């Protein structure tokens, strides 16, 4: 709804005000008068009316009456879409305006277009909710004060906005794949939307290496979805998944994309391509034990050369834990900084400690993991691990 209004009014601020106003009215009226038969349509119509009012008020000063009139027929005739035809993908490119930092672009896009809460955006970008709220406020203010235009991007705009768009799609998928809130460990809506967007991007920018890499990465991860939950809906760790349930077609698709991407990135490795290569190593392994850990560790070494982040170091430490044993994994983990509030780090460390026989420390680590925000199913699994330690 916000997306449509931004498109038809051409103003982020105005659209947001109008939607917020409509929601306030709904909160006020629905409990009293009952929820209308089509709540979404009600909200859309109310927000649209509010937007027209707001534009009229502007018109007193500016003579923007025409804009208000046009808004009423906007649905009948959508404005120029430029080169990106899909609504959501186009708005992603709009959000990723290069005058905003990539951090601000992704935060804004995840919040307004990805449908994530501020808390979820914060956790997926590994910052505190307060920092995230500040970042969002700052970005919105810059959009308003510096008048960053809302415009359908032209073909030459795409390359410099691509990094932000890819990051947003990747994080949307991640949030769907490891939901940080709610009851379930999966949010299929988000993962399938991310895959759809990646597919559209491939059509838009054929042969672009990062796009191929992202599409491969998503397919190779998504292939494991059928095995990621057991019969009771509890998450199953990669090591214990029934690999016969993995989606072979998705793996084939992912591998084909990865092949194309690798051929295009011989000179300079691309982070998405390398992550896809790691995912492929897992997907190709018949069992967890038979995984090609030396290959995974060396892909992580490549990944470190293009982006030395704590999350990459964490993945590498886990792989080293498999290749050379838990103590080596724990040593590698000591070089990871700043992930104390990040569940995969805390849970991964707990796991290595347990395997290494350091039971008391493992217990503390599992308890710390249970303090962190996650979905109910993952919480139960962590609690079960803690129980096993006695």
């Amino acid at each position, binding site marked *: 709804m916000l997306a449509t209004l931004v498109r038809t009014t051409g103003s982020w601020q105005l659209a947001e005000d109008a939607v917020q106003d409509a929601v306030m009215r709904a909160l006020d009226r629905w409990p009293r008068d009952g929820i209308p038969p089509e709540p979404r349509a009600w909200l859309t119509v109310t927000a649209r009316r509010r937007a027209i009012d707001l534009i009229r008020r502007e018109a007193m000063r500016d003579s923007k009456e025409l804009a208000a009139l046009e808004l009423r027929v906007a649905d009948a005739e959508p404005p120029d879409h430029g080169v990106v035809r899909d609504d959501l993908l186009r708005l992603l490119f709009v959000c990723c305006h*290069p*005058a*905003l*930092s990539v951090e*601000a672009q992704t935060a804004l896009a995840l919040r307004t277009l990805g449908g994530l809460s501020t808390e979820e955006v914060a956790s997926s970008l590994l910052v505190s909710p307060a920092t995230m709220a500040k970042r969002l406020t*700052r970005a919105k*203010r*810059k959009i308003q*004060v*510096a008048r960053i235009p809302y415009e359908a991007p032209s073909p030459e705009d795409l390359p*410099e906005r691509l990094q932000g768009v890819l990051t947003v799609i990747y994080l949307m998928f991640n949030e769907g794949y490891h939901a940080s809130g709610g009851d379930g460990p999966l949010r299929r809506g988000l993962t399938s939307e991310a895959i759809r967007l990646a597919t559209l991007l491939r059509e838009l920018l054929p042969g672009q290496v990062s796009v191929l890499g992202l599409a491969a990465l998503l397919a190779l991860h998504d292939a494991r979805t059928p095995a990621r939950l057991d019969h009771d809906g509890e998450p199953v760790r990669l090591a214990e998944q029934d690999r016969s349930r993995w989606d072979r077609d998705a793996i084939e698709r992912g591998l084909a994309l990865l092949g194309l991407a690798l051929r295009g990135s011989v000179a300079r490795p691309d982070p998405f391509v390398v992550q896809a290569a790691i995912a492929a190593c897992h997907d190709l392994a018949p069992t967890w034990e038979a995984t090609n850990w030396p290959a995974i560790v060396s892909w992580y070494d490549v990944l470190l050369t293009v982006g030395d982040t704590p999350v990459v170091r964490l993945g590498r430490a886990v792989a080293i834990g498999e290749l050379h044993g838990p103590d080596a994994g724990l040593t590698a983990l000591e070089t990871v900084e700043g992930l104390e509030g990040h569940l995969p780090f805390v849970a991964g460390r707990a796991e290595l400690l347990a395997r290494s026989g350091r039971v008391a420390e493992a217990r503390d680590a599992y308890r710390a993991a249970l303090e962190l925000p996650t979905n109910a199913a993952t919480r139960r699994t962590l609690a079960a691990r803690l129980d096993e330690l006695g």
Partner: protein
Amino acid sequence: MPQYAALIYEPGDPDWSAVDTPEKQQMLADYGAFGATAAAVLRGGAALYPTTTATTVRVNGGKGGDVVTSDGPFAETKEVLTGFYLMECADLDEAVRWAAQIPAAWYSGIEVRPVIDFGGSES
């Protein structure tokens, strides 16, 4: 007559679009007073939004190359450019005398730079 740009630098990236404290109110009054006193030499000027709203533009590969925009000011410094005046003065001494009356000079600093006269319309 030569012109000088008086560049106003302040610590902490203040936001002059919101006069929300008594201190800022006082400061704004001080600037108003300076504007009135210096009216005869002032040829222009502006207050700028904070650097959090700044965009830096570079063209990679020179003229006609890729336009690269980035979020933030040209240089990250402790004191930031928050505004400027364009003053027409007889000489640098006069420009400095005026600059000393700009409120930011009292707690931060003003950079005075002579403006190049390319001839043109001036006789």
